């Protein structure tokens, strides 16, 4: 999957327009984790919306295989920042609704649902309703609901931004564990540099006004990764400084 020189602009008058995203190109190789980091307003979420098919670029294109992306689909599962669960369905029904409506037989989706709920750590909560779940559990449920569609690409829009630090670490490790098992491609939006490095194969650093990509940074660490080991290593700290410098420099502040 590729985004090719995508520009998103909103006309404000006959001649003038606001450019939300300028000439953004990025590659989302299969089974790779790619992160976008940048300050708020840099258009990270707009990139995700393009890839998801919620909107189309003003110029440029988003390509999946040989064809252009024009609409959302279950091949690109989205995990939203604010959990968008079906509040009137219990945990299990939230997960099985998509396969059920697609006409999959219960004998096939029931054991799958059990497996994915187990994988995200929600086994035993099947009969609970979303309002009874904590923030972290709601995100786990969102992930399970998407995974049961076996997406090629998992699009995650600052999914852990609203969680406390401890929960966020647990969730990051969950993402990596799930990735090890199911190997989807992942596009991960975050403003947390450590999170981006820890998870990703490639980190795209973005800047605002207009939203654009400054640099693509390859993350060389082997998998599986351990948070403690990795974050205290010399290479990790250098990468973090490099990315922070890019972010800091471009928003007009002194490099960190």
């Amino acid at each position: 999957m590729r985004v090719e020189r995508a520009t998103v602009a909103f006309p404000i008058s006959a001649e003038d327009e606001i450019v939300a995203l300028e000439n953004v190109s990025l590659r989302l190789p299969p089974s790779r984790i790619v992160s976008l980091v940048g300050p708020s307003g840099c258009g990270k979420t707009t990139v995700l919306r393009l890839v998801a098919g919620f909107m189309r670029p003003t110029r440029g294109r988003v390509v999946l295989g040989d064809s252009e992306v024009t609409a959302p689909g279950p091949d690109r599962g989205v995990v939203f920042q604010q959990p968008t669960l079906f509040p009137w369905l219990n945990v299990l029904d939230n997960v099985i609704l998509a396969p059920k409506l697609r006409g999959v037989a219960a004998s096939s989706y029931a054991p799958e649902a059990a497996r994915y709920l187990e994988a995200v750590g929600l086994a035993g909560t099947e009969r609970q309703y979303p309002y009874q779940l904590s923030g972290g559990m709601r995100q786990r449920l969102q992930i399970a609901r998407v995974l049961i569609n076996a997406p090629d690409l998992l699009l995650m829009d600052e999914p852990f931004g609203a969680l406390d630090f401890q929960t966020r670490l647990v969730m990051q490790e969950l993402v990596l564990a799930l990735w090890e098992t199911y190997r989807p491609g992942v596009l991960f939006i975050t403003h947390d540099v450590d999170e981006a490095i820890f998870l990703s194969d490639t980190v795209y650093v973005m800047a605002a006004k207009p939203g654009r990509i400054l640099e693509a940074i390859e993350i060389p660490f082997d998998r599986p990764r351990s948070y403690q080991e990795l974050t205290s290593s010399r290479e990790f700290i250098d990468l973090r400084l490099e990315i922070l410098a890019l972010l800091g420099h471009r928003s007009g502040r002194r490099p960190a």
Partner: protein
Amino acid sequence: MSVALRARTDRIASPRRQRRLDRRVISGISVATVLLVWVACSFTGVLNPDKLPPVQAVAQAFWELVIHGYEGVPFWKEILASVARALAGFLLAVLVGVPFGLLIGESETMAAICTPFLGFLRPIALIPLFIFYFGIGEASKVALIFITALWYITLSAASGVQAVSKDLLLASQTLGFTKRQVFRHVILPSALPQILTGMRVAMALCWALVVAAELIAAQVGLGYMIMDATTFFRIPVVYVGVGIIGLIGLVLERSLIFLEKRLLHWQGR
């Protein structure tokens, strides 16, 4: 659930239950006090029996209504006449208003066509016109109640649809739902809370309106009964009528609240 966990949730839940119990007790005491003052006044003779009847007179009027009915019409028939009008108009309005409101909520064009009229309509002002067009028979009353409830239920269903979370709709698309499935499995349940609230308000309005319509023109019904009884100074009968009207209104409201709680338990309130 383990024993330890159950014990903990019990401890968490109990203060709330306690508070609700307190409120009920206070409400009970409040009602009992007013009744007691009335009963006390009744037996000391400070009340003017022509204006504010003592409790014995009202009780006796109630008993006579139950045994002999009002002016040859059995009491249950008076009650049934009012309730049947209200429910007939209300249920028709639900059958028409919910789909109509959903359509308006879904379609910009339909909303543009209909909202000016819905915003302009004030049903109670239509009572004289309905009597003029439909006469004073059942049709005019049911039609009036139907229009009133339709107005409310349509508006609430439409706003329920318009209030559906945009992110939830996007999520449904990424899960691969068809348009029909989105409507049936996302929009409809999302709009349900507002539809039920609209129904509850409409029901209260219907009940008030049926009584009002009967005051103006009817030969049977609780509204007719209290109007007629007032004309002939049968004040205890009026009080029985007022009490029954209040009680039925309460029962209707409670049943819709019960329905809401059952259908919307997932809101966790």
